[in-house]
Structure formats: C-alpha cells, structure tokens
C-alpha cells in the first residue's frame, strides 16, 4: 500500500524530478556512512534481499490491492544505508516489469525506504524497551508502514492541481474527443464536478492500508521468529533474546 502505484505522466513534472533529486542526494549521504569494502562485501546480500522483496511484491492479495513488501524485515537485516540502495534497486526492477512507473522510481524509493529505515529504527527502539521479539517486530512494522502510507498520500496530494488540470483537458489535444460528452450538460456544473477528491482517496486507502499494515506486521513477526529460531545472529539482538 505504501508503494505509489501511479503510472508515468500522472504526477507533475516538478514532483517526480524532485523525487529523483532527493533520492539521489539521500542515497549519496547514506552511502557515506557505509565503508566501501563493507558495501562491496554485502552487495550479494543486498541483491538477495532485494530479490526477496521483488518476489514478495508478486504475492498479490487482489481484493485489497495489497502485496507483501518485506521492506521492514529487509531493513532489520540490512541496516538503513543498504536498505535505501535495496529499495532503489527493487523499484527499478519492478518498474521494468510494469509495476509502477519509471518516472516515479525516485518517489517510490523515498516512500518505500521510509518503511525500511524506520522499520529498522523502530525495531531497535522497541527491542531495547520491550526485549520481546514479537511485539517489537509487529509495532516496528505497523508504525513504519503507517508512516510510509501517509507519506504516499502526501505525495499524491502534492499533485492535486496537476490532476485537476488533466481532468480539464477533455476535448483538448490532437483530436476532439466527444464520444463521452453528454448533450445539454451545463459547462458550469461539469467544471464543479471535476474536482480532485483526496478525502475519498484517503477513505479508500487508509482502511485498506490498515488491513495491509496488520497483515504485513503478522507476516514480518512470523518471518522474524522463523529466522530467530534458525539463525538468530542475523537479527543482531545481542545476548538477550525472547
């Protein structure tokens, strides 16, 4: 749900260009925090986790248009710098399969990395406080997804004036397109009807998102417990485990 499933050409030019600029800047800053040697060594691991995220994206729950992201568990395992590069790679590959537009790769990277980075931060924080794997993972996932969904709504909201402009394009363009126009429809009424309804969008996205946050939270908890049982070192929890 946190992924912006918008096609190319719907968001305004300035918005997606800014998305790319901010993503590249953030990626450059975060990569400074990782040693070059460490980055090279962990590149195959990043590739594997990114591949798992791509595969997770293929598990579609059609009625609620939700797919498993695995971003939080990847963030916990990779750390904040690598998860950013990981989400960038995931978005490029997904865009190459037609899953999300190419121009929105930057914005998608920013929203998806919010999930990964905050997932990591929240997990460490809740682990320190609670010392229990299940609630720490669930709360970290739930809150990280909530944050990224609201950032996605924010991004969609920033393009409001652009959508209105697009709606008023009817009949303009290369050819006149009159097939769908109703005869005798007063112009004023039609203009009033053509307003972007962000509240309706939120009313649809938030309840569906809530189901997704809970579902992803449960799946992340179960995955982390499975990893904890077989390879506890991967979670880097220290000596005390739950």
């Amino acid at each position, binding site marked *: 749900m946190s992924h912006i499933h918008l096609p190319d050409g719907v968001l305004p030019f300035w918005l997606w260009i800014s998305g790319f600029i901010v993503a590249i800047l953030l990626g450059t800053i975060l990569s400074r925090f990782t040693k070059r040697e460490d980055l090279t060594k962990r590149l195959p691991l990043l590739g594997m986790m990114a591949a798992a995220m791509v595969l997770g994206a293929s598990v579609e729950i059609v009625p609620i248009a939700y797919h498993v992201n695995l971003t939080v568990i990847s963030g916990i395992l990779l750390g904040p710098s690598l998860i950013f590069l990981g989400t960038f790679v995931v978005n490029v590959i997904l865009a190459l399969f*037609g899953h999300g537009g190419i121009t929105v790769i930057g914005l998608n990277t920013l929203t998806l990395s919010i999930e990964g980075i905050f997932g990591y931060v929240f997990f460490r924080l809740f682990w320190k406080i609670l010392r229990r794997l299940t609630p720490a993972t669930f709360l970290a996932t739930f809150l990280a997804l909530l944050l990224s969904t609201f950032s996605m709504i924010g991004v969609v909201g920033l393009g409001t004036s652009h959508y209105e402009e697009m709606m008023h394009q009817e009949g303009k363009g*290369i050819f006149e397109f009159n097939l769908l126009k109703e005869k005798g429809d007063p112009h004023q009424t039609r203009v009033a009807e053509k307003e972007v309804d962000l509240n309706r969008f939120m009313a649809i996205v938030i309840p569906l998102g809530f189901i997704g946050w809970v579902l992803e939270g449960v799946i992340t908890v179960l995955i982390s417990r499975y990893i904890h049982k077989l390879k506890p070192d991967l979670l880097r929890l220290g000596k005390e485990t739950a």
Partner: protein
Amino acid sequence: MIQLSYLDYSATEGKSWLHRLSPKWKIIGMAFVLSAIVTVRSLPGLLLLYAILLGLFFLSRIPLKIFSLTLYPLIFAILFIFISGFQIFFILLVFVKVLCGSTGVVLLLATTPYPSIFRILGRFLPPLFVTALFLTYRSIFILLSIFEDTQHALYLRGGFQWRNPWRSLINISNAFGHLIIKGMEGSERMYESMVIRGFKNKIYYRGE
C-alpha cells in the same frame, strides 16, 4: 512473478526483428514512449500509441502468456480512480497511460536480454548501482529455484487454505523465512565465487 523466467526465455530465444534490433535503439524507443506518456494528454493520441505498442507486441511474436503482465498494473490504477471523483475521461487517461507504460517496458524486457539493458544503463549510472541491479536480477532466479522446492514442502504442510488462514499465514511466512535464510547462504557463496573470479566492484559485460 514466476513469469519472469519465461520473460527471460523470450528475450534470449526470440528471433523476431525486434529481438534482433540493437538494445540501444530499443531503449531510445522506450524513452520516446515514456516522454509521450508524460507529455501527451490527449486520449486518442495515447490510444494510438497503445495500438502501436500492441502491434509491436504481436509482430514480435512474444508469447501471449506474457501479455497478462502488461495488465497487472491496472489493479492499482483502479484504486487511483477514486481521487478523480469517477471522471470517465480522467480514468480512461490514467488507464491508457498505465497500459502504454507497462506494455512498453514488457516489450523491452521480452525482446532484450537483461545483461544488454544493464550494460547500457552502466554507461550513465554508478557501477555499484548497476552491479546491485545485476545481482538482484540474478538472485531472483536463484530464489525462484529455491521457491520451487519450498512449494513442495508447503504443499505437504497444508499450503494456503482460506479455511485455515492462520495456518496459511504461518506457512507463507515460513516459506519467506526459508527463502531469506537460503538466499543469504546463497549470497555468501555467490560473493566468494565472484571474488575468486576477480570481482572488484564492477561487473564487466562481453565486449567491454
């Protein structure tokens, strides 16, 4: 996503003129399609572009099985229509843009082997990023083969059943956990073999 391997097979084994066309021209073509999607706001203009892309799709003799991939993004576009207050023109515009974009990229990927695309991307993107892209793409196929084995184990443990959602969730999560652990072990082996073969932050393609 299982269709990925089929997409890759189509790109390497296809013999049509679009398969034989230089990847450079296909990427330029894709950039043209993309700029048209971004700038054109006329529905007939976009429908014309979609018709051209469909024509190319069928002329390239790409297996019909792959066509469903181009329709996949519509699931999400349906969510987006609520923002417009059900304006038919806007909905059609968004849908045709979605279809043009997805058909364009699927057409590119179904007729061009991925190393050729990554080689061209490597000319203007940082080597580290292109290497990460390459390794991710390679890892998808490694994970898919692990997933095939895991599917049998999942089936024996009850698989996915709507009647027993909790058991199903545990099974799916265990499958992903298994994939992650096996993937990590695989990534360590992959890194070791890459270092033995002289890997130094960059993957070189044939002809470089």
